């Protein structure tokens, strides 16, 4: 039904605001309204003041591209539907429902309080009014529907990630109990649901009250849910007189709750409406891939006090909605470690809320982030992190946990608060340039076992410089893989060379440990060695070296074009420089290395290679961006895991073993080969399937050994 050509004046079709209200009630409403807005503004001021107590963040870029990606993420809810599609969709329903209803209220306010009073302009009537009503009804259904799903989820489905039990605290710790959060969660849901439902009841009551007026009753189906409520209330015996009283009651409760919500936004989890949006807009595209450089001339490094954090990080703390995606993804938490990325964020948030929310910044002791007190993060928690980036990658509101953890570790390193074995390894790396404590001279030793010489890139120009890395250079098992890669490049006729003892540990994991000084030393030494060599591009078999050379060396003046061997070899096959001679026909699964997959989005090349050599790939549930860390990252390869608990690599072996008929667990990272070959033995799956490096499978499929034999024969 439309009003065009109707008999009545379209101006009649509207809703009279405050209809039949005595003037004191209207004034009282405005008074309450202004109080709510006042409370909101003060709360926002207090939060902004808190964030500005952090230091400036040079990595925040306010440009079109950043703002656009943030808005797109919010509009599509792309980050929210991941790994929890129903919750994501429910949130989308709530978001758009709430957004449209808020816009609706604003449109009414604009006309009633501004355009009509100042300029005598009215627009909220006639066709516009009817469509408006319909839109509000749809939005209301969307809001209430989404909220009801969320209630069902919290009350009945109870996904484990919504359990706030803390792995980093004993049950008797003063900040173990998270029941306040649970109360807040439910209160928030109930307030919103009551606001939504009471809006419909109000609409229904108004229809019964004014049922004798055609400009109200005849257009009831433009407000279908309101009309449905009207019929329902009538069936329950509500007449026009009762409707007047009901309308008055509901009007005030609906209004009071809506204003309460507005006034509480900056003080409760509702603040995520703002903090999450800003957090998504200012997200760093390389949060864990490129860790922050220490500014020139800054003596103290790392985070000790809350005020060492940047404003953006303080804001991240408030953006967290405790959704638990990081909690679920964290390999340390999954295997019983004392770390949940969520609890790190919540602890620091609690600390910030107790220390930074008042008019004056308290003394430093109240701002200390390290420790076992309320709101503090213990060194055990910090050292449990493997910097695998699973938390950062899945966070729907772009909280960047890893840089905070590494910055806090930097302070621990300065104070020497670390595992003695880690300390020993760092000293070894400083002394010999590698974590094996081997002589620098032996770095290129593995190349001696080849039937052809490997060029020394320091002495003659090469097309491809191969950055070998520690594990591929010194670990006997991985040396075999390095030799395979050398044979493969040789067969493809690639002009390549290595730096021999000019190469040091690339420093990726040292930096993630938090030993920034040693990292700077290693990066500068490698960059100068690479810059004095003559080459066109770099290749590596080590995803860790790959990440730091690609993303972090540029900050130290080293710009190199680098590829991981997976994409490098794929191109050689595509270009026809290498030919697959034998289809292997294995049933395999592929483990995405953190530093190749999640860090650098190298998901496709290894899969294409597996397809090219005729393997049937069966994905594990945790694959690609959700790949499960082998446990070696962040320097943890140098620190033994506690005995008696399952190691991340063992957890992964169990996952792989659940694939029926699995023959090969394929890896493409030297550390993975070490970790998983070990885990295969300790989990007892030896003999059921094997762990193989993709390079060795490639060599078999390309029949390079045979080619070599023919050449030498």
């Amino acid at each position, binding site marked *: 039904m439309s009003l065009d050509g109707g008999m009545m004046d379209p101006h009649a079709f509207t809703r009279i605001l405050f209809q039949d209200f005595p003037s004191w009630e209207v004034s009282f409403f405005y008074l309450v309204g202004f109080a709510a807005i006042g409370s909101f503004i003060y709360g926002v001021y207090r939060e902004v003041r808190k964030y500005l107590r952090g230091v400036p963040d040079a990595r925040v870029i306010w440009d079109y591209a950043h703002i656009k990606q943030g808005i797109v993420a919010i509009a599509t809810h792309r980050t929210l539907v991941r790994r929890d599609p129903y919750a994501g969709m429910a949130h989308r329903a709530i978001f758009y429902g709430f957004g449209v209803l808020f816009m609706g209220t604003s449109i009414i306010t604009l006309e009633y309080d501004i355009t009509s009073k100042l300029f005598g302009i009215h627009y909220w009537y006639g066709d516009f009014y009817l469509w408006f009503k319909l839109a509000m009804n749809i939005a209301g259904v969307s809001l209430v529907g989404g909220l009801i799903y969320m209630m069902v989820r919290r009350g009945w489905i109870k996904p484990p990630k919504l359990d706030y039990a803390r792995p980093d605290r004993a049950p008797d710790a003063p900040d173990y109990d998270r029941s306040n959060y649970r109360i807040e969660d439910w209160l928030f849901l109930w307030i919103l649901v009551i606001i939504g439902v009471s809006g419909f009841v109000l609409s229904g009551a108004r229809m019964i009250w004014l049922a004798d007026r055609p400009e109200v009753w005849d257009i009831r189906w433009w407000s279908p849910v309101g009309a449905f409520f009207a019929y329902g209330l009538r069936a329950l015996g509500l007449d026009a007189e009762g409707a007047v009283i009901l309308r008055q009651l509901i009007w005030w409760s609906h209004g009071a709750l809506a204003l309460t919500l507005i006034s509480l936004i900056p003080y409760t989890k509702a603040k995520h409406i703002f903090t999450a949006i800003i957090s998504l807009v200012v997200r760093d595209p390389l949060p864990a891939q490129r860790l922050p450089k220490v500014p020139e001339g800054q*003596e103290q490094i790392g985070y000790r006090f809350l005020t060492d954090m940047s404003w953006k990080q303080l804001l991240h703390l408030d953006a967290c909605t405790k959704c638990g995606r990081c909690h679920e993804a964290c390999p340390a938490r999954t295997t019983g470690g004392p770390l949940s990325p969520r609890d790190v964020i919540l602890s620091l948030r609690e600390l910030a809320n107790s220390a930074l929310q008042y008019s004056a910044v308290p003394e430093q002791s109240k701002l200390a982030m390290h420790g076992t007190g309320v709101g503090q993060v213990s060194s055990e928690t910090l050292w449990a992190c493997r910097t695998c980036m699973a938390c950062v990658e899945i966070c729907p509101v772009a909280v960047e946990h890893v840089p905070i953890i590494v910055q806090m570790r930097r302070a621990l*390193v*300065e104070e*020497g608060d670390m595992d*003695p074995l880690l*300390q020993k390894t760092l000293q070894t790396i400083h002394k010999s340039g590698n974590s094996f404590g081997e*002589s620098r*001279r032996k770095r290129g030793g593995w190349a001696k076992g080849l039937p052809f010489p490997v060029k020394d890139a320091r002495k003659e120009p090469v097309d491809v410089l191969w950055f070998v890395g520690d594990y591929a250079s010194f670990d006997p098992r991985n040396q075999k893989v390095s030799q395979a890669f050398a044979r493969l490049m040789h067969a493809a006729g690639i002009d390549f060379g290595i730096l021999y003892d000019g190469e040091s540990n690339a420093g990726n994991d040292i930096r993630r440990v938090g030993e920034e*000084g040693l990292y*700077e030393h290693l990066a500068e030494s490698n960059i100068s060695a690479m810059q004095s060599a003559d080459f066109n591009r770099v290749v590596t078999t080590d995803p860790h070296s790959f990440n730091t050379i690609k993303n972090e060396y540029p900050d130290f003046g080293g710009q190199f074009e680098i590829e991981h061997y997976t994409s490098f070899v794929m191109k050689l096959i595509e270009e026809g420089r290498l030919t697959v001679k034998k289809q292997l026909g294995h049933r395999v699964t592929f483990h995405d290395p953190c530093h190749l997959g999640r860090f650098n989005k190298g998901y496709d090349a290894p899969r294409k290679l597996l397809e090219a050599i005729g393997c049937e790939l069966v994905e594990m549930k945790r694959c690609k961006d959700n790949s499960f860390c082998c446990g070696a990252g962040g320097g943890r390869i140098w620190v033994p895991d506690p005995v008696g608990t399952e190691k991340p690599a063992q957890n992964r072996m169990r996952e792989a073993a659940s694939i029926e008929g699995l023959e090969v667990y394929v890896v493409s990272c030297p550390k993975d080969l070490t970790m998983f070959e070990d885990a295969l033995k300790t989990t007892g799956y030896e003999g059921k399937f094997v762990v193989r490096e993709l390079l060795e499978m490639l060599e078999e499929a390309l029949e390079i050994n045979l080619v070599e034999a023919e050449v030498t024969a």
Partner: protein
Amino acid sequence: MKILIAIKQAIALDEDFEIRADGRDIEEDFFLPDLNEWDEYSLEEAMLIKERHADTPVEVVCVTIAPDSADEALRKCLAKGADRAIRVWDESMEGSDPVAIARALAAVAKKEAPDLFFAGVQSSDHAHGATGIAVAGFLGWAHSAVVARLDYTPGAKEVALKRELEGGLSQELRLPCPAVLTIQLGINKPRYASLRGMKLAAAKPIETLAPGDIGLATNDCGESGSLARVRRMYVPEKQRAQILAGDVAAQAKALAAIIREATGS
């Protein structure tokens, strides 16, 4: 209150190394220098005394008798919190034996007048185990070697300690200050010196002195001030082991041949 600590830049060797042309030392190219392991513990012990008694100012001073290549070891000490670093050297000190080194250390100690003098039990390269105690000899101070626990309040006239004896025995004693103590591994857990700490320590000055500055004459130093001098350094010939193959008769035959060869009969 002051603690003086003798420091040595000790040398570890690369796996394959070569003897210097004159046959008296290793070729320098194969040196992997680092702070002597024992000195890490003596410095840590001094730092613990300093930190545990924040109300009494404690000055921790490191001293080494070495050329400037040892500055790195001193920097590590400064990075770990030492207040000052002293290095004594000139060419005349080349070839000093542990006693000549101790003479120089004692001269620095006289100048600095510390309440305690720490040295490592031994150095991780030459392992003479003589320097610390020789310093006590020159100074005539109370001394104790292989100290495994230390109890000292800055300003006290006495130091209580436990020392390790052979055969798993321990001995507890008290010494009057000033005293010379050689510190054993495991007495504490040395702290980590971060690389940034070391770089920052590079800005701290190292006081460099010549033997003359501490009242030493030329014949107190180097080979002329030493009773021992290195004649030759070499890798001892490896002992051989061999598994004899074949049946019993063949094995017996082979064994007889070896015996004949060894006895020259």
